[in-house]
Protein backbone atom coordinates (compact mmCIF):
# COMPACT_ATOMS: atom_id res chain seq x y z
CA UNK A 1 0.00 0.00 0.00
CA UNK A 2 1.44 3.43 -0.96
CA UNK A 3 2.26 5.93 1.78
CA UNK A 4 0.13 9.05 1.27
CA UNK A 5 2.31 11.93 0.07
CA UNK A 6 2.51 15.11 2.10
CA UNK A 7 1.35 18.39 0.48
CA UNK A 8 4.94 19.64 0.14
CA UNK A 9 5.96 16.44 -1.64
CA UNK A 10 3.08 16.80 -4.07
CA UNK A 11 4.02 20.43 -4.75
CA UNK A 12 7.56 19.41 -5.66
CA UNK A 13 6.18 17.77 -8.83
CA UNK A 14 6.56 21.21 -10.37
CA UNK A 15 5.93 22.66 -13.77
CA UNK A 16 8.08 22.21 -16.85
CA UNK A 17 10.26 25.13 -17.95
CA UNK A 18 8.08 25.42 -21.04
CA UNK A 19 4.93 25.77 -18.94
CA UNK A 20 6.55 28.39 -16.73
CA UNK A 21 7.62 30.34 -19.81
CA UNK A 22 4.12 30.31 -21.33
CA UNK A 23 2.62 31.46 -18.02
CA UNK A 24 5.25 34.18 -17.79
CA UNK A 25 4.39 35.27 -21.35
CA UNK A 26 0.81 35.88 -20.19
CA UNK A 27 2.08 37.92 -17.24
CA UNK A 28 4.24 39.98 -19.59
CA UNK A 29 1.47 40.76 -22.08
CA UNK A 30 -0.85 41.52 -19.16
CA UNK A 31 1.55 44.28 -18.13
CA UNK A 32 1.50 45.61 -21.67
CA UNK A 33 -2.31 45.61 -21.65
CA UNK A 34 -2.46 47.42 -18.31
CA UNK A 35 -3.80 44.30 -16.56
CA UNK A 36 -1.40 44.81 -13.69
CA UNK A 37 -3.25 42.70 -11.13
CA UNK A 38 -3.31 39.66 -13.42
CA UNK A 39 0.42 40.08 -14.10
CA UNK A 40 1.07 40.31 -10.37
CA UNK A 41 -0.96 37.21 -9.48
CA UNK A 42 0.74 35.14 -12.17
CA UNK A 43 4.23 36.34 -11.20
CA UNK A 44 3.57 35.66 -7.50
CA UNK A 45 2.49 32.14 -8.39
CA UNK A 46 5.55 31.60 -10.58
CA UNK A 47 8.06 32.62 -7.90
CA UNK A 48 6.29 30.54 -5.25
CA UNK A 49 6.44 27.49 -7.54
CA UNK A 50 10.02 28.24 -8.54
CA UNK A 51 11.84 30.85 -6.40
CA UNK A 52 14.77 30.82 -8.88
CA UNK A 53 12.59 31.96 -11.79
CA UNK A 54 14.19 35.34 -12.36
CA UNK A 55 11.69 36.80 -14.88
CA UNK A 56 8.95 36.33 -12.26
CA UNK A 57 10.85 38.54 -9.81
CA UNK A 58 11.35 41.16 -12.53
CA UNK A 59 7.62 41.28 -13.22
CA UNK A 60 6.97 41.73 -9.48
CA UNK A 61 9.50 44.54 -9.42
CA UNK A 62 7.79 46.20 -12.38
CA UNK A 63 4.43 45.89 -10.59
CA UNK A 64 5.97 47.50 -7.52
CA UNK A 65 7.22 50.41 -9.63
CA UNK A 66 3.79 50.76 -11.25
CA UNK A 67 2.02 50.72 -7.88
CA UNK A 68 4.58 53.14 -6.43
CA UNK A 69 5.42 50.51 -3.80
CA UNK A 70 9.12 51.19 -4.15
CA UNK A 71 10.25 48.97 -1.27
CA UNK A 72 8.44 46.01 -2.81
CA UNK A 73 9.91 46.87 -6.21
CA UNK A 74 13.42 47.03 -4.75
CA UNK A 75 13.04 43.79 -2.77
CA UNK A 76 11.89 41.92 -5.86
CA UNK A 77 14.74 43.39 -7.91
CA UNK A 78 17.22 42.27 -5.22
CA UNK A 79 15.86 38.72 -5.45
CA UNK A 80 16.45 38.72 -9.22
CA UNK A 81 19.90 40.25 -8.81
CA UNK A 82 20.94 37.70 -6.16
CA UNK A 83 20.08 34.96 -8.64
CA UNK A 84 21.73 36.58 -11.66
CA UNK A 85 24.05 39.45 -10.87
CA UNK A 86 25.38 39.62 -14.45
CA UNK A 87 21.98 39.54 -16.15
CA UNK A 88 21.42 42.99 -17.73
CA UNK A 89 17.72 43.17 -16.88
CA UNK A 90 18.34 42.20 -13.25
CA UNK A 91 21.10 44.79 -13.01
CA UNK A 92 18.91 47.51 -14.51
CA UNK A 93 15.99 46.76 -12.23
CA UNK A 94 18.28 46.82 -9.22
CA UNK A 95 19.79 50.14 -10.30
CA UNK A 96 16.40 51.72 -11.03
CA UNK A 97 14.70 50.56 -7.85
CA UNK A 98 17.73 51.41 -5.71
CA UNK A 99 17.45 54.98 -6.97
CA UNK A 100 13.75 54.96 -6.10
CA UNK A 101 14.48 53.97 -2.48
CA UNK A 102 17.50 56.31 -2.37
CA UNK A 103 20.00 53.47 -2.05
CA UNK A 104 22.60 55.46 -3.95
CA UNK A 105 25.49 53.19 -2.99
CA UNK A 106 23.94 50.04 -4.48
CA UNK A 107 22.84 51.94 -7.56
CA UNK A 108 26.34 53.33 -8.09
CA UNK A 109 28.05 49.99 -7.56
CA UNK A 110 25.90 48.15 -10.08
CA UNK A 111 26.06 51.06 -12.54
CA UNK A 112 29.84 50.76 -12.43
CA UNK A 113 29.75 47.00 -12.96
CA UNK A 114 27.30 47.35 -15.83
CA UNK A 115 29.34 50.11 -17.44
CA UNK A 116 32.35 47.79 -17.51
CA UNK A 117 30.32 45.00 -19.12
CA UNK A 118 29.02 47.37 -21.78
CA UNK A 119 32.50 48.70 -22.51
CA UNK A 120 33.80 45.16 -22.82
CA UNK A 121 31.07 44.41 -25.36
CA UNK A 122 29.47 41.80 -23.09
CA UNK A 123 26.12 43.62 -23.20
CA UNK A 124 24.89 44.51 -26.66
CA UNK A 125 21.12 44.76 -26.32
CA UNK A 126 20.34 48.33 -27.35
CA UNK A 127 17.31 48.75 -25.06
CA UNK A 128 19.46 47.70 -22.08
CA UNK A 129 22.18 50.14 -23.06
CA UNK A 130 19.67 52.97 -23.52
CA UNK A 131 18.12 52.34 -20.12
CA UNK A 132 21.59 52.12 -18.57
CA UNK A 133 22.41 55.57 -19.96
CA UNK A 134 19.13 56.99 -18.64
CA UNK A 135 19.78 55.59 -15.17
CA UNK A 136 23.37 56.77 -15.23
CA UNK A 137 22.19 60.30 -15.99
CA UNK A 138 19.66 60.06 -13.19
CA UNK A 139 22.33 58.82 -10.79
CA UNK A 140 24.70 61.62 -11.78
CA UNK A 141 21.95 64.17 -11.17
CA UNK A 142 21.31 62.73 -7.71
CA UNK A 143 24.96 62.73 -6.72
CA UNK A 144 25.88 66.16 -8.02
Amino acid at each position, binding site marked *: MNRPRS*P*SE*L*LRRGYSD*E*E*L*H*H*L*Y*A*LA*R*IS*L*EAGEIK*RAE*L*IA*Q*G*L*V*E*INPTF*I*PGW*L*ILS*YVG*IWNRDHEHAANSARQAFRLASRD*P*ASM*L*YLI*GTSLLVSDIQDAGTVLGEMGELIEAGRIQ*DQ*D*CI*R*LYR*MLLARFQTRTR
Partner: protein
Amino acid sequence: MKRSAVSPPDDFSNSPFFAVLPVLGDTTKLPTLKTSLFARFENVTTLKKSVGPEDRATIKKLQAEESMLRSVLEWLKVRVDE
Protein backbone atom coordinates in the same frame (compact mmCIF):
# COMPACT_ATOMS: atom_id res chain seq x y z
CA MET B 1 15.05 55.90 -42.74
CA LYS B 2 12.92 58.67 -41.27
CA ARG B 3 10.15 57.43 -39.00
CA SER B 4 6.61 58.23 -40.01
CA ALA B 5 4.95 60.80 -37.77
CA VAL B 6 2.01 58.45 -37.33
CA SER B 7 3.94 55.29 -36.46
CA PRO B 8 3.42 54.08 -32.90
CA PRO B 9 6.21 54.56 -30.34
CA ASP B 10 8.48 51.59 -29.72
CA ASP B 11 8.30 49.61 -26.49
CA PHE B 12 11.25 51.49 -25.03
CA SER B 13 9.62 54.87 -25.52
CA ASN B 14 6.46 53.68 -23.80
CA SER B 15 8.18 52.02 -20.90
CA PRO B 16 11.91 51.40 -20.73
CA PHE B 17 11.59 48.94 -17.85
CA PHE B 18 9.02 46.92 -19.77
CA ALA B 19 11.22 46.85 -22.87
CA VAL B 20 14.07 45.09 -21.04
CA LEU B 21 11.90 42.32 -19.58
CA PRO B 22 12.89 38.93 -21.02
CA VAL B 23 10.74 37.65 -23.89
CA LEU B 24 9.91 34.03 -23.11
CA GLY B 25 7.16 31.58 -23.91
CA ASP B 26 4.11 31.89 -26.11
CA THR B 27 0.60 32.66 -24.90
CA THR B 28 -0.87 30.92 -27.97
CA LYS B 29 0.29 27.65 -26.41
CA LEU B 30 -1.75 28.19 -23.23
CA PRO B 31 -5.06 26.93 -24.68
CA THR B 32 -3.36 23.55 -25.28
CA LEU B 33 -2.58 23.43 -21.54
CA LYS B 34 -6.15 24.21 -20.51
CA THR B 35 -6.97 20.71 -19.26
CA SER B 36 -3.77 20.25 -17.29
CA LEU B 37 -4.00 23.74 -15.78
CA PHE B 38 -7.57 23.09 -14.67
CA ALA B 39 -6.53 19.76 -13.17
CA ARG B 40 -3.73 21.51 -11.29
CA PHE B 41 -6.19 24.13 -10.07
CA GLU B 42 -8.52 21.48 -8.68
CA ASN B 43 -5.56 19.66 -7.13
CA VAL B 44 -4.22 22.78 -5.44
CA THR B 45 -7.67 23.74 -4.15
CA THR B 46 -8.10 20.26 -2.65
CA LEU B 47 -4.60 20.27 -1.16
CA LYS B 48 -5.22 23.63 0.47
CA LYS B 49 -8.11 22.15 2.41
CA SER B 50 -5.94 19.31 3.73
CA VAL B 51 -3.12 21.51 5.05
CA GLY B 52 -3.16 22.42 8.72
CA PRO B 53 -3.30 26.12 9.61
CA GLU B 54 0.10 25.86 11.31
CA ASP B 55 1.82 25.08 7.98
CA ARG B 56 1.83 28.71 6.86
CA ALA B 57 4.57 28.30 4.26
CA THR B 58 2.66 25.60 2.39
CA ILE B 59 -0.60 27.53 2.65
CA LYS B 60 1.10 30.63 1.21
CA LYS B 61 2.55 28.64 -1.66
CA LEU B 62 -0.74 26.92 -2.42
CA GLN B 63 -2.65 30.21 -2.21
CA ALA B 64 -0.27 31.87 -4.66
CA GLU B 65 -0.46 28.96 -7.08
CA GLU B 66 -4.25 28.81 -6.82
CA SER B 67 -4.57 32.55 -7.53
CA MET B 68 -2.19 32.26 -10.47
CA LEU B 69 -4.09 29.34 -11.98
CA ARG B 70 -7.44 31.06 -11.41
CA SER B 71 -6.19 34.16 -13.28
CA VAL B 72 -4.88 32.10 -16.17
CA LEU B 73 -8.04 29.98 -16.42
CA GLU B 74 -10.21 33.10 -16.39
CA TRP B 75 -8.11 34.51 -19.22
CA LEU B 76 -8.67 31.23 -21.07
CA LYS B 77 -12.38 31.69 -20.38
CA VAL B 78 -12.57 28.50 -18.36
CA ARG B 79 -15.22 28.72 -15.70
CA VAL B 80 -13.77 28.28 -12.25
CA ASP B 81 -16.37 27.68 -9.59
CA GLU B 82 -15.66 28.72 -5.99
